[in-house]
């Protein structure tokens, strides 16, 4: 075996190793909370700017260049810009609504995420179960803790989950942050909590 061949072989092995060793970098998640509100103000500011016939003077003070360009691309070159502008707020609403997770979805996604190791998942599940037991006992009047303490425990647990997720599964972390209050509302309502099946 020639020295050249050995060199080629080692180079290939090192190249492959570099590929194998590379971790899955999660795609840069779009700013979940701020994404939807942005188009709305753009659309509203564009509305008065475009239909103006511009009688020779240049009164264009708006800096919102991307929105008019998109509107021009979609609409025919006729001056009917208000039609696409009126539609724009409608598609913005569903993504914001879909960001909130219910408990079962959260449970499923936490099970599936690779950002948390197996032992950590079990430890987290233990702590979630403990918190749910505390809620159960609280609603049954079996324990002398108040809602403030439960809220503190809930916040602490959320912080733990987020600290485990935030570096490697930012999408799920963001979804949890946006669902945080909704989950709390669910837990803090005895009637809703009674329907819980976890």
């Amino acid at each position, binding site marked *: 075996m020639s020295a050249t061949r050995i060199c080629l*072989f080692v180079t290939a092995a090192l190249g492959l*190793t570099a590929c194998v060793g590379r971790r899955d970098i999660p795609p840069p998640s779009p700013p979940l909370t701020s994404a939807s509100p942005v188009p709305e103000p753009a659309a509203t500011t564009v509305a008065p700017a475009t239909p103006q016939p511009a009688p020779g003077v240049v009164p264009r003070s708006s800096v919102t260049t991307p929105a008019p360009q998109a509107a021009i691309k979609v609409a025919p070159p006729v001056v009917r810009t208000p039609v696409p502008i009126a539609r724009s707020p409608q598609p913005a609403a569903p993504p914001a609504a879909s960001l909130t997770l219910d408990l079962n979805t959260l449970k499923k996604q936490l099970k599936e995420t690779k950002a948390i190791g*197996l*032992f950590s998942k*079990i430890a987290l599940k*233990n702590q979630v179960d403990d918190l749910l037991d505390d809620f159960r006992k609280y609603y049954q009047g079996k324990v002398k803790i108040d809602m403030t303490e439960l809220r503190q425990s809930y916040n602490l647990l959320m912080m733990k989950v987020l600290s485990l997720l935030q570096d490697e599964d930012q999408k799920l972390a963001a979804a949890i942050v946006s669902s945080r209050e909704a989950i709390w509302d669910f837990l803090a309502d005895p009637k809703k909590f009674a329907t819980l099946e976890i």
Partner: protein
Amino acid sequence: MNKRTVVLTQSLFLAAFFAVRSFAADEEALKKDLTAVIALQGLPCGQVVAVKTEAENDYAVSCKDENKYRVYLNAAGRVVVEKRK
């Protein structure tokens, strides 16, 4: 040297190379997981630097701050972290 021997040597070298690398990656993942478990219990550790497997789902752990723990899964399915001297 026979051509077959060369190919076999190459294959063995590659297999060993990736096996060692995979083992190291697994151990790093386990250390990270155990670090997270200890932190979840609110115990001081900093970072797990050494892990010794005592049994299945039972580990003796040494931390960077020189604390030592036993981390295991008990019969009730709970992760238990015990401090060791």
